[in-house]
């Protein structure tokens, strides 16, 4: 897939918007420099260039394979892919320190991978297996990796914004130099939490960088049809949050932009809003018929494929050879294959774990009264008939159901040993990575 292709014309990428001089600080709105589309970023050295390219390839291949697995019903629910948005995702994570927090939306597989979570754990989550990042509880939309400070994908549009500011509040409260990166969609900027969160982040000087992944649509509604102000970077100014735009199809531009913003957030305690102009090449979710946009428009954006662009840059700059790029792609495919195999071979969560982790159990709360006609064990319902694998699981658990007594319909949910964990693991800085 990595072929020699010229970078497309960025002029249709989005309206110029009032940016902020992230380095200088005191530019007034009138003086602010124009956004920096296709600036001359220094090419990274070969090693780093490869690392960044590999991360993007891994995400692309992962997402493609996830789409296939969804079509084969290995994955349930909704599946929102970030194909086309890889530069925004990887550029962002490349700019972050390992002690920074990242929080995202339901379109977050790429972010989790970029943070360094093993692909097999991400795929296993999609497969609903106990080996998944969220132990099969969250699925595609709700991944979380405390160890790598990936603070969650959230299914509710706009729901992650206040939480991001809360993470920033904790950093300010404790006096750490952790910063927070919050990714949101263009559609999410219309949610009430957007204005409320930006105001508080600015008022309390919280180290949060908000990145609008402007992929031009909120589901089937185009930017111009959902937002009166289409220069999204400007949406923060009235709340005291300066905004800047970056080319979301250029991983180096995203990286430098996010890095500047993080510096400002960290040292000047100034939240920043970034609009990364990008495009999703696939539908909103895998089930989207995409009647709301033309094939020509999609093709036009595909000309600016962020992975192809970056690979070409590296090749032309002499950082890597075409053969090396091909080899990286092969490696990514292999890693994804291994992830699928791992996921497919992993077990589902045991049915008797259904009630685990609803509460943190301890001396005060040893269980709770629950009125429930089912024991956690019993389920051979209509929905699973026919699926041999699930049937097997259900039957394996049938031993528990024998003699199930409805006298126990009011059940004291007792904590068992596995229900009483210690305090949740402190999210520790992971290894440095892209």
């Amino acid at each position, binding site marked *: 897939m990595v072929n020699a292709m010229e970078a497309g014309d960025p002029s249709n990428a989005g309206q110029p918007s009032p940016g902020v001089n992230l380095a200088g600080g005191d530019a007034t709105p009138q003086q602010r420099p124009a956004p920096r589309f296709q600036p001359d970023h220094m090419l990274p050295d070969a090693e780093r260039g490869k690392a960044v390219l590999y991360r993007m390839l891994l995400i692309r291949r992962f997402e493609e394979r996830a789409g296939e697995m969804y079509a084969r019903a290995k994955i*349930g*629910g*909704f599946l929102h892919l970030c194909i086309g948005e890889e530069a925004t995702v990887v550029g962002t994570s490349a700019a972050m320190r390992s002690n920074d927090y990242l929080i995202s939306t339901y379109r977050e597989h790429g972010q989790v991978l970029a943070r360094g979570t093993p692909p097999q754990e991400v795929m296993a*989550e999609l497969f*609903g*297996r*106990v080996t998944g990042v*969220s132990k*099969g*509880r*969250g*699925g595609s*939309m*709700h991944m979380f990796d405390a160890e790598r400070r990936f603070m969650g994908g*959230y*299914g*509710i*549009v*706009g*729901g992650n914004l206040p939480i991001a500011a809360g993470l920033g509040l904790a950093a300010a409260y404790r006096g750490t130099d952790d910063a927070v990166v919050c990714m949101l969609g263009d*559609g*999410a900027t*219309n*949610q*009430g939490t957007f204005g409320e969160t930006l105001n508080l982040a600015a008022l309390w000087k919280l180290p949060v960088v908000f990145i609008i992944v402007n992929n031009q649509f*909120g*589901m*089937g*509604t185009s930017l111009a*049809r*959902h*937002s009166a102000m289409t220069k999204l970077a400007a949406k923060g100014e009235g709340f005291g949050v300066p905004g800047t735009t970056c080319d979301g199809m250029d991983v180096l531009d995203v990286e430098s932009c996010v890095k500047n913003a993080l510096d400002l957030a960290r040292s000047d305690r100034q939240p920043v809003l970034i609009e990364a102009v990008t495009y999703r090449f696939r539908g909103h979710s895998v089930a989207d018929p995409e*009647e709301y946009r033309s094939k020509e428009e999609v093709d036009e954006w595909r000309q600016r494929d962020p992975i192809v662009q970056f690979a070409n840059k590296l090749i032309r700059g002499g950082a890597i050879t075409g053969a090396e790029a091909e080899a990286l792609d092969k490696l990514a495919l292999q890693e994804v294959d291994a992830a699928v195999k791992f996921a497919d071979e992993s077990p*589902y*969560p045991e*049915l008797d*774990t*259904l*009630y685990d982790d*609803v509460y943190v159990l301890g001396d005060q709360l040893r269980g*709770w009264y*629950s*009125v*429930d*006609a*089912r024991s*956690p*064990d*019993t*389920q051979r*319902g*209509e*929905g*699973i008939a026919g699926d041999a694998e*699930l049937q097997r699981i*259900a039957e394996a658990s049938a031993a528990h159901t024998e003699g199930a007594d*409805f*006298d126990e*319909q009011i059940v004291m*949910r007792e904590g068992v040993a596995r229900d009483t964990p210690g305090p949740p693991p402190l999210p520790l800085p992971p290894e440095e990575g892209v």
Partner: protein
Amino acid sequence: MSEMRYREALNLALREEMTADRNVFIMGEDVGVFNGAFKVTDGLLKEFGEERVRDTPISENTIVGMGVGAAMVGLRPVVELMTINFSLLAMDQIINHMAPIHYMFGGQVRVPIVVRMPQGAGHQLAATHSHSFEAFFQHVPGLLVATPSTPADAKGLLKAAIRDDNPVIFIEHETLYGMKGEVPDDPSFIVPFGQAAVRREGTDVTIVGISRMAVTAQKAAEQLAERGVSAEVIDPRTLRPLDLDTILRSVEKTNRVVIAEEGWPHGGVGANMTALIQEQAFDYLDAPIQRVAGADVPMPYSRPLEQAAYPHAENIVAAAMATFETGDRV
């Protein structure tokens, strides 16, 4: 009569009411160009234009609030929330504004709005996207609450909802959209609020099923029949107003009750209905009322766990059988 799907019946109701009354219009996320996330509003933008079929930004609280404002001055908005999960973002407008305005302002103003949305689990959408919230809404005085479970009811109740001068919470079900059924063609056909439907007559046990559970209850009744148990299945159709009389008449006959709902058990529809039944018909009960509800957990994604976390016909059967084992109970 025509056979059509639940979603088509809703579409027809919208079309008929919009044709009959220019004050009726639609707002919601992706209801226009996208033709609705569940295709309920399919073709309506084309037929009625952008003025009356309005795509909104993702701003649930404000969309509902604007509907309230428009309704206060005489329009009849039908607001679609993409799913009931997102109604949580609009709870302030629904409970602090939409519901009490008529009362709070001394009856000077009416709020004839319908807020439509589907609910339900079973699609592996996990904790944020699998809610069933009829219990939340039935809690609130000032709201009417409908939970249609057949295509005919979908059409008849939606038309009644649009014509009513009260704010209506109209709860559809994601898994029922494709269900087929006979629907009256007559544009004057409505299903009045406050009239339960007896879906199946029986003598041994009354099963009250809410929303999708009305359908599941009928499956359970078939299974019970195989065991020689004659179950009467009642679909209340609206929870506010609730047709308690029909339920009580059935209880007087069967002396046993199971209430099935998909939402959480604590403070659920069954909890409330149990209280009402024992207050009104205690002497007729031969066994404790059984409740079947969703598991008392946030909905898990993984398929086996999710299947275990919401009720199936087997659970209703088990609960019905338990009403015959009362002597064994402590």
